[in-house]
């Protein structure tokens, strides 16, 4: 080490005097330029298709501005035509699915993850493996395997779209797990729950009144990512012949392209705003390092 740097050190030392500050400033300027050029180019690539959605949804083939598609979006809930009905049913189904999926996801994950941290840490690897498996198996493969299971569910429960929530809970599992895991890492679950228990709290109380409030922002971000995944989900619904929001947009797109494009843009923008709000939420979640159970 020393022999190698022997010759280079003096050279460096001479140039380390006053210029570096200027050098560093120059580099910072270059970095800023690089940053904005990259953001403008890639941002343009992101934005052009979105702007095109707006253009194409408001222009007829002759190139005139028409707003009928956007009026149809506005009166989705009240209009009587088949397309609006289809979309309304799809949207309602998707919203119910979001609610049910979130409940299943939280009920399955939060108590189990807390318990594993407290009492059976050796099972953590297994749980991580399960979540990696859920990330690995493609949705389209799951559909093939779930088809016979859903045939049984149709017999026992019904063919209602709402039962897709079981499959969706698996779909959101790896993402929700990652988010909740980071949240639990940031708090000292063990001490907190022991404190609660020694003050006479039940296990339900520990989960509801100690763990969940402490990992609130992780829960919120797990919910948001699940919400985005479920609202946009197409694979399961379309191949198992259920109607959700994405399949409705797809079907409408077969005969009313402008309406489908307007809806695509609206839903992308709504999802964007939701996730932006989330990022403002999770701003306070900084102190991740340190005490880990």
């Amino acid at each position, binding site marked *: 080490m020393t022999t190698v740097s022997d010759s280079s050190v003096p050279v460096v030392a001479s140039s380390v005097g006053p210029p570096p500050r200027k050098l560093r400033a120059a580099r910072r300027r270059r970095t800023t330029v690089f*940053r904005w050029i990259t953001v403008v180019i890639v941002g343009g690539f992101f934005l052009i298709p979105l702007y095109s959605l707006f253009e194409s949804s408001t222009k007829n083939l002759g190139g005139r501005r028409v707003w009928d598609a956007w009026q149809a979006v506005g009166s989705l809930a009240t209009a009587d035509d088949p397309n609006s009905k289809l979309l309304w049913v799809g949207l309602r189904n998707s919203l119910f699915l979001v609610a049910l999926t979130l409940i299943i996801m939280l009920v399955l994950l939060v108590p*189990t993850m807390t318990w594993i941290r407290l009492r059976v840490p050796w099972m953590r690897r297994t749980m991580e493996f399960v979540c990696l498996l859920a990330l690995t198996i493609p949705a389209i493969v799951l559909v093939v395997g779930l088809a016979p299971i859903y045939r049984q569910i149709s017999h026992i429960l019904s063919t209602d779209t709402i039962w897709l929530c079981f499959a969706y809970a698996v779909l959101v599992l790896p993402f929700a797990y990652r988010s909740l895991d980071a949240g639990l890492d940031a708090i000292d679950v063990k001490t907190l729950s022991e404190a609660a228990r020694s003050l006479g709290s039940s296990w339900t109380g520990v989960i509801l009144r100690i763990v969940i409030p402490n990992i609130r922002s992780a829960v919120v971000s797990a919910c948001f990512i699940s919400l985005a995944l479920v609202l946009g*989900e197409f694979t399961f619904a379309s191949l198992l012949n259920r109607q959700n929001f994405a399949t409705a947009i797809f079907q409408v*797109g077969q005969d009313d392209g402008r309406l489908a494009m307007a809806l695509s843009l609206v839903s992308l923008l709504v999802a964007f705003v939701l*996730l932006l709000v989330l990022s403002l939420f999770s701003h306070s979640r900084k102190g991740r390092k340190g005490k880990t159970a």
Partner: protein
Amino acid sequence: MTTSPLAAPSLAPAGKERGGRRSFLLALPTVPFFAYVAVFLVLPTIIVIVESFRNRDGSFTLDNARRLFSANSMSVFGQSLALSATTAVIGSVVGAVLAYAIVTGSPTGPLRKILTAISSVLAQFGGVMLAFAFIATVGRNGFVTKLLADWGLHMDTTWLFEFNGFVLVYSYFQIPLMVIVFLPALDGIRPQWREATETLGGSSWTYWRRVAGPILAPAFISSLLLLFANAFSAYATIAALTNANTVVPTAIRGAMINEVSDQGNYPQVLALGMIVVVTVVMFAYARLQKRATRWLG
């Protein structure tokens, strides 16, 4: 009741050491989770694997597996692998550059928030909507198509529904996914490492070549593999774009629709092929991910 909270903490180590019955009882509260996953994740996977080795009347056969190596299946898998590899490389390189551009800015600034929010939407929500977005852009009456036509450039728009079009559309969710998965790795880079390099006389090139590059390499390659698996599994966008069965997921759709007239369990066989590919990729991903967190945790 009052004594149990005091006794409870001491149970944990004892249970671990003695193993057996006690740890089994301790694991009981995790049963609902694992039972659920067994029914809705493990069981479907097993069904796919078992069914692909059975024929219609339920007896064991290798005929289906042989169909996996038919010219038709091979070309579909080839197309899928080529598409996934191409878009994984494009997505990871462009995404990494964009992620780096984001990291050089303020960690709490609006630029980062807006770009990560856009990335999440495009990577995880899009699907069908992205297909419409590209039909609106470079489809027959698309915005860019018309714009180019106004400038005298008439474009043949059928390419959108072929390989190059798929590459374009896939990049639209691959680049954002790279941003999301690579940002945390870049966040782990400490400015001190660069200062240390400079103090020792290293240039920017030395820093990237000898310090940041090797540290980021495992994270980069594992992200690339994740992107590959993501493209390989993607269904919604391409299904909304075309009815042709050009990639494995759409071929599965085709096989599921024709299932009645089909003699073998072709959807299951194709799905088995996908499982094999994705398992190999994700195994490498998980291994690299562990390495990646050694420095960047």
